Every structure is written in C-alpha cells, then in structure tokens.
C-alpha cells in the first residue's frame, strides 16, 4: 500500500467564496472546533449559572464589578427590559433559583450598556437614564471630622479621617466629649457604618443631616435608623446609621473638601473616651452628580451702584473698591455659573470696626490756632491701629486738658492725627487714649437675578465676613431659578448677584470676589450613553450633544468641572452618537454609531486638557453598539517580512469586522464577508444592531461574536470566532444562543478567569467553556475540508485520519462532490476515537474511499453528547485521472 503524506490540520473557514473557489486544502466550514495549530479540538460546552430563568428575557450585557483595593465582586446582568440584576452567587457557584435581584429598575428603550470601573466605583450607562454610579459594599468615607459647626469655610474640627480609613483597628478617631461629627463620602450615601474603638456610654441619640440643594443648607434625613444605638446610647455598638435617600441632596464644601457631607448631631456629649476605628458608607446605584472640584472660580466682574450718584462703577472681580459704600449702595457681581457660595476676600483692607491707641507719656496735643489741631505720637502707630480720614474719634485723657474730646479726623499719618480747628488744647507727653468706634455692617440684602427681577436669597447665615471685617464666604439660600442676564449692558450674558450692607463701609476697603459654582449635571444631559475610565479620568457621553465626550477631572469621576475637566468632540462634525469609548494602549478611542452610511472612529492622545491631541482614524466606519468592541494588548501580527506585537481594537460595523492598530483601520472579516454583503440573504439584519456583539474570550484566545443574520432572525444566530493566533475563522453553533459574553474572575476554584454568556432569549446566564455539552445538548462539531482538482478530475483513493484518543466515540466521515451541500450516502465511515491499544494517545484510520470528482468536500463530524473530539491530521491519496474529460 502506498504511503500517504499526512498533513496537520490547520486553516480558516471561508464562507465568502463558492466551495470550489476555495483553494485546495481549505475549509468551507469549521464548526464548533477550535484550531490548535495544528489540529482542531472540539470546543467546550456551557452550563447554567442559575436553575430558574427570568421570564425568558434576553441578557443584553454582563459585567463583573471587581474592586482593586479589596476582594469584592459583583456580577451584573442587564436584561432587555432595561433592568439590571446582581447575581446571588459569584461564579463559579451555581445558584439554585433565579439569577439574582434587581439593582436597577426596568427602563424603556435601554441600549446595551457601557460599564466601567474607576477608583473602585462601578459606572453604568444604558441610554435610558442618567449615568449610574455605585460604590459597592462598605466603601471608605472620604473624610471624618469631629467638632466644628458645619458651614462652608469651616475652621474648627479635628480631622479623624486617617484613623477611620487606615484599616488599622488600633488607631481610632476620638469622638468623646463631642456632639458634632461630620463625614464626607464621594457619592451620596444612605448609610454610615461605624466600627467602634471604644463604645459610648452616655445616653444620647443622633440626628443626621445632608446638604439640601433647594435650601443650600443642612436638612435632616428621613427614615433614620441608628444601628449603633444600644440601651438608648448611640455609638454604643458597631453598626450603621441608615436613612432614606434624599431627593435634593448635593455636594458641598466643608473642611476644605468637596463631597457629600453628613452632619451627625448627638443629643448629649459622648462619653469622653468614645472612639471610632473605621467608618464606611453604603448606597445603591444612583445617578451621577457634578461635584465642585474644590478650586474657587473668579467672578467675572463687579459693579458698584452708588445710590447717591445714581450710577454704576465697574471693577474687575479681583479688586472691587467698596470704600464708603453706604446703606443704599449695592455690590453687583457676575458669575459664569450659578453659585453655591461667594468668597469675599478683603485682603489687607478690612472694614474698620474699631481703632484705638493709648500712649505712654508720648501723646502730644497741638493747638493749631487758626489751622487744624493735631495729635502726635512717638509710637508711629496711628495708621496700623486703623485710624482713617473722616473717622469720629474720642480722646480720653483723665486729668488732662483734652479729656473726653470728640472730633473728626482730617488727615492721618503714622504719627499725626489732624483734627478740626479749635478742638484741642496744647499739652505734651500725655498717656491719653484715642478711640474710634465704628459700625459693624450687617448684610442687608443678597439677591440673584431670576429673569425679570431680583429675588431675595439671603439666608440666616449668609454673611460669614462679619461685615467685611474678615475674608469669608457669603452663603445664600439657593435660587434654582437664577437666570443669566446682560446686566447694565455688560455686553455678555452671565448670572448676576448683588448684596448690600445696612451701614456705611469704611473708606479704604476693597474686596475680591470668587465663587463656588453650582454645576448641574443635567446641563450636560439627562440620559447617559457610554462611559470609560482612562488615565484616572472618567469619560461620559450623553444623548444631548451625542458626539461630545465629557472628561472628568483627574481622580474623581464626579468632578466634571474646573480647569482639569475637558470636552472632546469625536468625529468630523456629525452628531452621530458616541456609543463606545475605550482605552487603547496609551490612547483613547471613541466609536460613533453609523448613521446614513457614516460613523466615525476618533483617537486621542494625551493625559490632560492641555495635552489632548486628536486623530480621526476614519470618518466612515462606525460601530453597532457598546458591546461590539474588544481591545487587546500584545497581539502578534506579522506580514511576509516583519512581525510586531501590537495593541489592536476589533469592532463590528455594518460593513464588517474591523481592526485598528491606532493608525490604520483594516477589514478583518474578508473570509466571512458574505455576512456583511447586502446582496446576500445572510446579510446582518438592519434594525437589530443592538442585538449583535463582539467580545474577547481569553480561554479560547479568540474574538467571539454574535450576528443577527438574515431577514427574519431577531436574536444572534450566527456566531463566528476569530482566532488571534493566526487570524483564522471558525463558527460556533450554540445550542443556547448568546447575546453577550463577559470575562469573570472566579470567586472560588482553581481557575482564575471564567467566561460567562447571556442567553439571547431564554432568561439564563451560562458559564461558557466548560463541560462537554451545551448544557445537555450534544455539540455538533465538524469540519468541511475542500479538495479541489482545479477543474481536473481526481481519484480520492484512500483517506487517513489521526485523532486524539477518547474514552468513547466516533468520527463520522462523509463526502460531497462538486461543491454540493448534500453529502453522499456512500461511501461513509464511522471511525472510532478509542485507542487501539489501551493507553495509546492517538488513533489512526486509513480506508479505501474510491471516489471520483473534480472537487470533494470531506466532512469529519462528531455530534454525540458527553464526548469530545480532537482531530490532528489527515491524509488523502489523490490522483489525477488519466482520462480527464
């Protein structure tokens, strides 16, 4: 018998060509086999993650929230009704019963969601509601202060933050002998979890307040339950103070930190040694807010209304001369944003409330005769004491000639006060006292412009400057209806505020005005589309201005303001939605959805608003949805002359599967391009773009995808697999159609990385790449090997196959001729995979085929439950026919 060269099995499925156009030795189908370079091994099966389905709903996306700072995992699935559930059990534990419980309610029109993790915060965007954020379980507070009063510009209080966040039970924050505690969280909280160092022994209860945006001050939470209360004593045991999430909460700025602050007022002083060793918070998924970045913003400019002269004086906001401001005069100032508070910086020129000097036998009174009289000192301290022209002073000099004289300062220098003529009697070297007692200006009004008039927003504690005696904040009540205006024909629109005092300000006072703005996230949009974390920033897109990407300040995903915040515009000017933003090596790529035949892929380099640089990779090719992209590092690619390790992004478009290396966009789906050819019946279905997916499967080192193919399918029905080792294609035929796939870190077991898939229409989530069956169904694996005579007739005399030995099972071999899809009933072969001699790792078969055709399709198939198969190599004795007519 002649020797047949055995050839290792390798290759790629080509569906875009006619069978007889596939080169000799190629494959028209490799189904449910993974290439092993060489060889083909039957793919693994899948198993249900939970035993009870949820209303047969499609699982649109799966995502594991996995914290970096501690071991904490949450597996979420987004259902087609928009609801999001958290798995009861972390993989690979199988749940008896339903998958889990809702963490987000159903939302109409939800898109496949974008998920990301920044600073151990989960961020979720689904196109049906505001971006959602979640901090997981027992997230550490951002700050904890004991004492203080709880006002913007707070100066008191003891910082206990480090001691309650350092994971060291031996270091504690003493809260004893205090009645006020302040905690800051980076998200709105609904509970604070206390771990105590020393329990309180004083009978006392607490009230908890949050910062209310409608009043711009504290408001008591509702539904407070104090889990630390024991025998009538708060903070007497470890536990949580929890409450109902307020609807009007917003961040504020206390103790020099911007965040969500809570004030805990204890009804009686805590026992002296009481202490807290750890403080964490909890909150459910909630809409993002915009938190002030902590850097005060200069007001634009200011105007002084002189009520006597009836005119405005205009100033830059950094220097506003309020000297001699009288009771009827207003200070107006403008701001680009509505304000939460205004910081009034009086610098070195405070209002003078009192000035006094007492001499030590060195005050001399000079009678100027018909000229001004004067008071002289050798201390040179009249100016530093606060004496100014125009002040009415009182001289007291017990036993002297000028005791209890009241006069008015005409001029003042460091050593001479000049007063009116005839006031003083000449007398030298006295220990007299000269005193000026002024007024304390009381803030009389604080208004904001609300469209057609000024609206009072002066609160009970608005003025914290003490009447311009010191720098401080003015904290008005919020005016949510504040409107921009072109005030006094300023030439621009901005938000204007004004204030005035009920008394005259002293004559040399100038102030600077800065503001803490109030940023309303709804100004960006109310519905979030996508998100991504990149270089310690969070990137958001919204339905409003959908081509814009909003970039948070570094380090805080909720700070979308200030100099460190940016807006990037994707594409070339079209308003196509940005559906996906992904980190790509040291860069960022945004994909816009295809509309009217155009999409767009844009790349940015840089790490800050000053350094961002933009490159449009393609204005044409776009993406289908947020679950249609995979970015992979370390892909070995090669050309005929070169090999390179690259970062590559793969994504699904209407026009194919595309790849970019960050410079060039290429098509990867040439071999299966029939699915992206509108002339073909199997063309991916329009209107079902959000059903399709493309995801990396690390266990198979492959890009897997689900396509809705044909004119009637409503869920993915074609599952191509792109193998990264050699760029070959195979197809999965899944007994349980999948709508998404996610990599999951195992919570137990010896395998670190697991793959989970969401059922397309059965309400189940599956563990993939496990077992020999698709749940209970056999995996129908086969390869169709194309042998072509190039138009000449061939004799297929013998075939040889080697496979890996199995405990049981057969390979079925059959043949189709001249490109037919129907296989001949004879000859066929059933080839056992069982070792010929027990212990043999491989099994070989050779048999006489005796077929004649100009093209053969040779099928090797295995379709038996609970068995696997591994094809290694094949050989054919092929001979050209002598008579080739």
């Amino acid at each position: 018998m002649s020797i047949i060269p055995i050839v290792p099995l390798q290759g790629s499925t080509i569906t875009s060509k006619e069978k007889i156009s596939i080169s000799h030795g190629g494959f028209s189908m490799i189904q449910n086999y993974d290439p092993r370079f060489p060889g083909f091994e039957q793919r693994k099966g899948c198993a249900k993650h939970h035993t009870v389905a949820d209303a047969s709903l499609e699982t649109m996306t799966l995502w594991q929230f996995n914290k970096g700072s501690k071991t904490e995992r949450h597996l979420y699935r987004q259902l087609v009704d928009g609801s999001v559930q958290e798995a009861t059990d972390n993989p690979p534990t199988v749940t008896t019963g339903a998958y889990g419980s809702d963490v987000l309610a159903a939302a109409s029109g939800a898109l496949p969601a974008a998920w990301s993790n920044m600073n151990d915060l989960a961020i979720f965007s689904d196109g049906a509601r505001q971006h959602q954020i979640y901090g997981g379980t027992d997230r550490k507070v951002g700050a904890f202060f004991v004492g203080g009063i709880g006002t913007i510009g707070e100066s008191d209080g003891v910082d206990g933050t480090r001691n309650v966040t350092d994971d060291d039970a031996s270091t504690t924050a003493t809260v004893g002998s205090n009645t006020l505690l302040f905690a800051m969280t980076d998200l709105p909280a609904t509970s604070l979890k206390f771990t105590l160092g020393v329990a309180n022994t004083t009978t006392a209860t607490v009230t908890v307040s949050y910062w209310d945006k409608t009043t711009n001050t504290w408001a008591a939470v509702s539904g407070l339950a104090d889990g630390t209360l024991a025998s009538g004593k708060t903070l007497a045991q470890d536990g949580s103070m929890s409450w109902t999430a307020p609807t009007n909460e917003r961040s504020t700025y206390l103790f020099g930190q911007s965040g969500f602050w809570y004030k805990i007022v204890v009804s009686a002083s805590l026992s002296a040694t009481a202490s807290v060793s750890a403080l964490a918070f909890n909150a459910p998924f909630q809409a993002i807010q915009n938190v002030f970045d902590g850097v005060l913003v200069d007001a634009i400019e200011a105007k002084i209304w002189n009520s006597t002269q009836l005119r405005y004086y205009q100033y830059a906001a950094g220097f506003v001369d309020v000297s001699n401001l009288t009771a009827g005069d207003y200070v107006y100032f403008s701001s680009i944003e509505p304000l939460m508070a205004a910081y009034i910086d009086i610098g070195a020129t405070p209002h003078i409330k009192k000035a006094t000097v007492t001499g030590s036998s060195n005050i001399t009174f000079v009678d100027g005769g018909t000229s001004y009289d004067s008071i002289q000192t050798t201390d040179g301290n009249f100016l530093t004491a606060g004496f100014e022209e125009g002040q009415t002073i009182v001289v007291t000099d017990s036993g002297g000639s000028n005791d209890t004289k009241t006069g008015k300062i005409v001029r003042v220098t460091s050593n001479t006060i000049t007063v009116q003529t005839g006031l003083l009697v000449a007398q030298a070297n006295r220990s007299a006292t000269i005193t000026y007692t002024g007024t304390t200006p009381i803030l009389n009004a604080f208004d904001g412009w609300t469209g057609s008039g000024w609206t009072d927003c002066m609160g009970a504690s608005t003025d914290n400057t003490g009447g311009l005696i010191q720098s401080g904040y003015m904290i008005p009540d919020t005016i949510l209806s504040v409107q921009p205006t072109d005030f006094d024909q300023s030439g621009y629109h901005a938000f204007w505020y004004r204030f005035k005092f009920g008394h005259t300000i002293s004559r040399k006072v100038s102030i600077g005005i800065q503001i803490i703005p109030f940023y309303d996230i709804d100004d960006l949009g109310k519905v979030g589309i996508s998100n991504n974390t990149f270089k310690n920033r969070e990137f958001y897109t919204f339905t409003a201005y959908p081509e814009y990407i909003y970039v948070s300040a570094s380090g805080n995903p909720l700070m979308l303001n200030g100099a460190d915040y940016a807006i990037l515009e994707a594409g070339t000017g079209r308003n196509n939605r940005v559906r996906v933003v992904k980190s790509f090596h040291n860069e960022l790529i945004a994909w816009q959805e295809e509309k009217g035949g155009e999409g767009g892929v844009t790349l940015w380099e840089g790490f800050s608003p000053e350094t961002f640089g933009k490159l449009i990779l393609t204005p044409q090719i776009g993406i289908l949805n947020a679950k249609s992209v995979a970015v992979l590092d370390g892909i070995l690619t090669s050309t005929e002359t070169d090999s390179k390790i690259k970062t590559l992004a793969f994504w699904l478009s209407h026009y194919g599967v595309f790849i970019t290396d960050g410079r060039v966009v290429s098509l990867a789906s040439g071999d299966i391009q029939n699915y992206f050819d509108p002339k073909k019946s199997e063309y991916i279905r329009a209107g079902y773009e959000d059903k399709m997916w493309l995801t990396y499967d690390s266990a198979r080192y492959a890009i897997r995808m689900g396509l809705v193919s044909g004119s009637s399918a409503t869920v993915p029905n074609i599952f191509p697999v792109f193998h990264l080792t050699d760029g070959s294609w195979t197809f999965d035929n899944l007994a349980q159609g999948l709508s998404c796939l996610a990599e999951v870190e195992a919570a137990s077991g010896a395998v670190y990385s697991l793959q989970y898939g969401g059922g397309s229409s059965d309400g189940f989530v599956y563990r993939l790449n496990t077992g020999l069956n698709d749940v209970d169904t056999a995996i129908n694996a086969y390869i169709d090997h194309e042998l072509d005579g190039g138009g000449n007739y061939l004799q297929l005399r013998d075939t040889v196959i080697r496979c890996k030995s199995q405990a049981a099972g057969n390979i079925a071999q059959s043949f189709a001729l001249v490109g037919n899809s129907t296989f001949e009933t004879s000859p066929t072969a059933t080839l056992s995979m069982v070792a010929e001699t027990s212990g043999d790792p491989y099994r070989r078969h050779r048999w006489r085929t005796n077929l004649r055709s100009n093209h053969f399709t040779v099928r090797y198939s295995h379709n038996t439950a609970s068995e696997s198969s591994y094809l290694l190599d094949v050989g054919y004795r092929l001979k050209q026919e002598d008579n080739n007519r």
Partner: protein
Amino acid sequence: MTEEVKKPDTRRWFEKVTPCKNLNLEREVKFVDLSEINKAWGKKKNMDIPIEKADDEE
C-alpha cells in the same frame, strides 16, 4: 480695564470644547485586495495536500 475683561468668555462649563492639537502621525494608507487583508496575521497557507500526477503525464 483690559480687553479680556471687557469681553469675558462666558461659555458655560458644558459648552467649552477643549481644543486639541492635531496629531499628524505617520500613516500609511494602502488599498489592498480583500483576499490579502489577513496578511496582518501572516499569509495563511492552506494545507499542502499533494496530488499525484496522472500516469499519462509521467
């Protein structure tokens, strides 16, 4: 009063698109035959299955 103060930039926080520098990165654009595109992974060879010549050609 400076010109800048007279005409302040009053675009609000959600309106100021960040100016980006243009990345003039080197690009090489090639138009290639679709069948050749997978060269990114090297030229995939079909299995080299020999065919014996017909006897009359020998």
